[in-house]
């Protein structure tokens, strides 16, 4: 039997980290371009954020402060699990406060609070190829990117409009980065797309199972695809957050009973908590003290 396995700082060995950092540098140099990298098996399953975890593991240092969210929340089980992983293998400080984090790893959301300069947002990406559902073959889609052949995507969006009256893509809504590459923003709701544009922070995208890394460097133009007569719009919620009263944020619908009763609350739990601490109250908020129970 082999001796009990010893793991390097942040789990990955240094050669692997170097390999991933090289891929990240290339990705930053060519915004929106999907860089192939030799993805490793991680100790969590593919689909659980192995790409994001590898990116984070490669860039994290002992002084970093890490925040992990899933669906916007710090306390969803997978976010808890990934945060605990890095607390264990890298012994780094963790936080739930967006403003305090130097690295934020996310699945499916961009925090409501805008990124600051120096912050890095790491996205977990399931399918990095925005053209994948139009063309299943990698050999073909790489060619299409190389030739900037994005007509198929526009046809798809046009067909949505002619069939439904709307572009029926509500998440993973394709964007064009710096006027060149069409990119999948990961399955974030299109509500978050505008936050990617001209962000002061660095945005890194890791797709472990698909062996791809891509990036949006700070202050990069990110435009959601649309048509002149059907401009891109984001989701709008009719009511404010029931707990903190926030408007213009992304809300989760919570079913209260089996009679159709429901409430809407902030998907970004940190944002919601900070607002409540600042004294904001929604119509279903509990009294101070009870709210944190």
């Amino acid at each position, binding site marked *: *039997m*082999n001796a009990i*396995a010893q*793991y390097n700082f942040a*789990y990955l*060995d240094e050669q692997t980290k170097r390999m991933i950092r090289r891929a990240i540098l290339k990705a930053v140099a060519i915004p929106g371009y999907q860089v*192939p*990298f*030799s993805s*490793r*098996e*991680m100790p969590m*399953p*593919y*689909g*659980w954020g*192995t790409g994001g975890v590898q990116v984070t593991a490669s860039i994290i240092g002992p002084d970093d402060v890490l925040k992990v969210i*899933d*669906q916007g929340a710090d*306390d*969803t*089980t*997978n*976010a*808890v*699990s990934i945060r*605990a992983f890095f607390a264990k293998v890298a012994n780094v400080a963790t936080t739930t406060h967006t403003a305090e984090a130097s690295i934020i790893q996310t*699945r*499916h*959301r961009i925090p409501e609070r805008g990124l600051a300069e120096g912050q890095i947002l790491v996205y977990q990406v*399931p399918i990095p190829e925005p053209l994948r559902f139009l063309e299943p*073959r*990698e*050999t073909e889609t790489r060619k299409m990117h190389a030739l900037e052949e994005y007509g198929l995507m526009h046809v798809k969006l046009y067909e949505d409009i002619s069939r*439904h009256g*709307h572009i*029926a893509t*509500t998440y*993973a809504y394709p964007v064009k980065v710096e006027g060149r590459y069409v990119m999948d923003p990961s*399955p*974030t*709701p*299109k*509500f978050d797309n505008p936050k990617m544009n001209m962000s002061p922070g660095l945005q890194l995208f890791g797709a472990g*199972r698909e*062996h791809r890394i891509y990036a949006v460097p700070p202050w990069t133009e990110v435009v959601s695809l649309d048509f002149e007569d059907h401009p891109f719009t984001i*989701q709008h919620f009719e009511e404010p957050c029931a707990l903190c009263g926030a408007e213009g944020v*992304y*809300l*989760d*619908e*919570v079913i*209260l009973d089996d009679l159709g009763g429901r*409430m809407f*609350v902030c*998907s970004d*739990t940190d944002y919601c908590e900070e607002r409540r601490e600042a004294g904001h109250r929604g119509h*279903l908020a*509990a009294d101070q003290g*009870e709210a944190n129970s």
Partner: protein
Amino acid sequence: MYVAVKGGEAAISNAHALLADRRRGDRDVPALRLDQIVEQLGLAVDRAMGEGSLYDRELAALAILQARGDLIEAIFLVRAYRTTLPRFGFSRPLDTGAMHIERRISATFKDLPGGQMLGPTFDYTHRLLDPALVGAAVEAPLERVGEESAAPRVTDMLGHAGLIEPDGETDPSREVGDLTREPLDFPLDRDLRLQALARGDEGFLLALGYSTQRGYGRSHPFVGEIRIGEVEVEFEIPELGFAVSLGRVRVTECQMVNQFKGSASVPPQFTRGYGLVFGQAERKAMSMSLVDRALRAREFGEDIVAPAQDEEFVISHADNVQATGFVEHLKLPHYVDFQAELDLLRRLRAEHEGGQAMGEAAE
């Protein structure tokens, strides 16, 4: 009153505790030891080693124990450990012709040098449950009788006459591909393809191989030879300038002989599909060789009409650790995206109702 959902951390640790409890089962039943798994569930161990790409029976047994017998989970455990190991290089090609053979059969010749050896096979057992196995008294181990004679590979014998395509020569300076170190870039060379197949899911390859037999990419296969046994692994050490033996591994090799091909420059000859898997894994090796042959369609200028011939399709979906991860990740929360869909659907339905009301008013 709604209370924010908290407690992911406690829920996870409770789940882990329960998992450990259920894994152990009834405490009155003695705990399994690794040597029991290695010795008595050997083929499960072989599968975990093969698809886990790590030749270590004891670690594979530990993985099977930890995974409660779920082999894909065990393969995942082995892989996640393997990926942390440093890579020193690659061995010299295995000489399977020099194998210490435990089983060797050919379906293409009645008899051949080295003979047919059935070995430890299920092939001619009657599948009747055997209650005598339960709590059976310890029997003396069986000694194998008969001396081992050299058994040249069938493909080499056919090869002497030029009836079958040769092994092929690779440029000795060319490094063999390794998909665990370099990202896959389609189309693949055959070395990478074979590596992917050797790690691929047995069930997936079995189904694909089966599909070629039923006409989806038919290749008229014959089992030229299946051999199971131990081969020496030799490693060239640059500082020494010669190869040293690292030890022996047990492998299963399958050479499938397929319909002939020829060209203006080469007379017609049989083509081959190849399978090589760690341990005793005959079903996997046979499936692999069928799929390998199917995937050579491009090389032989055959029409690519069937799933098994489609390299991107086969290789992208053969890895069960990747597949199970992505399929099972659907149980992770997706409520943010679902909310987005819900919102659009409600809007579309409202517009639909509005449109109908307008239509009725107009009538």
